[in-house]
């Protein structure tokens, strides 16, 4: 467990290797857990497969966020969101609906500049982006992209070697 913690000087710098290993370890662990949970009900209806894959997806994101730790805003926001979802699922859902409605209203109403539009789009994509200013949003986006790509790579590798 002694993979060196990366010191972020400018925020964007990230040691991809250590991040990758942390992520891989966490993700494999959670995959194993998912497998354990799934054992009794080995039925494979369409709905269940979707649910399970969603679970794996969430596990992947979660382990990435955990691997990054609380030093970045996006991982913090994601972990917070996930925890809240676990604790109060109804509340979160309601909030989400409201937010979606508000956003669509805004989008239809405003003839805002393209720049702002794209910024908002980016805010939706990056977790916790709604409360960031544009500058830090870009920084977080850079970090998020590196993390996502490592995540994809690791998942790809695992999938390849599991399917062999």
């Amino acid at each position: 467990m002694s993979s060196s913690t990366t010191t972020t000087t400018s925020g964007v710098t990230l040691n991809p290797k250590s991040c990758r290993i942390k992520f891989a370890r966490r993700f494999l662990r959670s995959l194993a857990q998912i497998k354990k949970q799934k054992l009794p009900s080995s039925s494979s209806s369409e709905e269940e497969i979707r649910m399970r894959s969603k679970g794996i997806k969430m596990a992947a994101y979660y382990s990435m966020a955990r691997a990054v730790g609380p030093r970045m805003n996006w991982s913090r926001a994601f972990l917070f969101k996930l925890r809240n979802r676990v604790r109060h699922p109804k509340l979160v859902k309601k909030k989400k609906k409201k937010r979606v409605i508000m956003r669509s209203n805004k989008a239809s109403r405003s003839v805002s500049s393209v720049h702002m539009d794209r910024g908002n789009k980016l805010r939706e994509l990056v977790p916790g982006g709604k409360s960031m200013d544009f500058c830090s949003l870009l920084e977080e986006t850079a970090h998020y992209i590196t993390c996502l790509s490592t995540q994809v790579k690791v998942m790809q590798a695992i999938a390849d070697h599991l399917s062999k």
Partner: protein
Amino acid sequence: MDPPLINESSFSAANPAAYSLAEIWPFGGEPGGLGLRMGNLGGGLGESSGNRDGSLEESTVTEQSGGDGRKRKDVSSEDESSKIVSTSSANGLKDSNGKRMKLDGSRNENGNSKAEVETNSVAGDKPDEQRTKPSEPPKQDYIHVRARRGQATDSHSLAERARREKISERMKILQDLVPGCNKVIGKALVLDEIINYIQSLQRQVEFLSLKLETVNSRVNMNPTIEAFPSKDSFDAAGLLFGSHAPREYAQGSQPEWLHMQVGGSFERTT
């Protein structure tokens, strides 16, 4: 940029009274651009007249680099008066200098936050540099920090400019990260590209999780892995891949571990 030249000559003429300038200096220990300027002056004052001239000229130049026409006129008129006074008496020079510095100070106040921050970092080693190389390199720093000619100098626009610089810098970083984004010109298009890339990555994650789900369930049917009893949550890899894996990754360094696990050790176990 003509007035500073006149100004320089005037001050070099008034050399003997220079030491008193430091005494009447009103803004003693203030940090920031003002403090730096004081450092310049102080450094110059300790030295010969030539050095002092250099620093003085520099300060005036940099002041004016950001100013508009009216301000420049102000300074030049002030210089004129100081010149006149300096020829007549040393006391007069003190006053006029004081006035002038006050003027500078007030102008500096509605100056920039960014300049303050950046000059703060440089302020420590500045006076020494000043002594050795009187005129040229610090001038560049100054101008770099402050507004260029024709640019607005109020704090809002300076802050905005700093922000924009930051944003463009980060955009460059992002452009390097996103493949095929270097050729794209224009912020909006770059943002589009970034958004597309993130979305594609997220889709990939979704797809891969679907794939992993099916694969995972298939592997699940394999009895050998289930037969491996490990309660330790840290040995998830061992749980997945059998008894070989944990030993291996305990030995090797971390990157090797991942490599081996994904590459070699796995095929043996399944």
